[in-house]
């Protein structure tokens, strides 16, 4: 338990889905690089998702698993001929296990210039309560 509190977010990479429900051709799926740190507002997660817009971004919390899925929309005209390639266009998928002290109700996220920022506020801890011991 202490260990889990220490590392409030544990990364867990999911295997990419093999078939797309829309029948589209299989696309490359990347694990985006992330930064995770503590801020006064809570834990902050930053993920690089170049080419993903707010409309194509899905962020889901189920139980204590946070999953981010960003679909990249191609900006290349179909008639373009590739001369030189250093990166592939593709979708981004990554999942994290949240610790129990993250307040799920107050999680906020925004996407700006291809970077997703998720703020995970800590749930207020219950104040220590003295338990009176009575003798009979």
């Amino acid at each position, binding site marked *: 338990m202490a260990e889990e509190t220490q*590392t*409030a*977010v544990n*990364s867990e990479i999911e295997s990419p889905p093999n078939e797309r429900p829309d029948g589209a051709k299989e696309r490359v799926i990347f694990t985006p*690089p*992330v*930064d*995770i*740190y*503590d*801020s*006064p*507002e809570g*834990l*902050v997660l*930053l993920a*690089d*998702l*170049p*080419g*993903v*817009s707010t409309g194509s971004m899905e962020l889901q919390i189920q139980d204590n698993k946070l999953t981010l899925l960003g679909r990249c*929309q191609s*900006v*290349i*005209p179909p*008639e*373009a*001929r*590739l*001369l*030189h*390639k*250093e*990166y592939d266009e593709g979708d981004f998928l990554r999942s994290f296990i949240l610790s129990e002290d993250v307040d799920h109700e107050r999680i906020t996220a925004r996407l*700006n*210039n*291809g*970077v997703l920022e998720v703020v995970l506020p800590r749930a207020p801890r219950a104040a220590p309560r003295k338990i009176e011991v009575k003798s009979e």
Partner: protein
Amino acid sequence: MAIFRWGDSWETFRDLERQVDRLLNGLTFPIPLIRVERQYPPINLYELPEEYLLTSELPGIEPAELDLTVANGILTLRGKRAAPTNAIDDQFRRHERIWGAWERSIAVPERIREDEVRADFQNGILKVHLPKAPETRPRQIQVIAGNVEGEM
């Protein structure tokens, strides 16, 4: 460069072998096949009928912090990605993203209209449109017969 080895009696295959060798030797690769060290930012380059299109992945850059210059066939991209400022004690539980200043120069493939280069930046993807100059079309050069013993 022989790539197939057959027995001596296979004369027809030897012909095929020679043909394949000739084909392979005749191929020229427009891009050097030796990969250089991975550079930042990654760049893709496309050709369209009227322009070259350069795209680059630059998540987290503010468009105002992006500096593009083009001169003498060299396109230079410069930028800076700021580190998060609200981290407590600058401690990171995970640190996989790159921050800091970077610069990269690219030789533009052919003559382009440098004064008409334009760029847009959306969702962390930079697109630079490099319109082709009309003089990149083949130009006939007239050969004038000169005096062989004329001045050099």
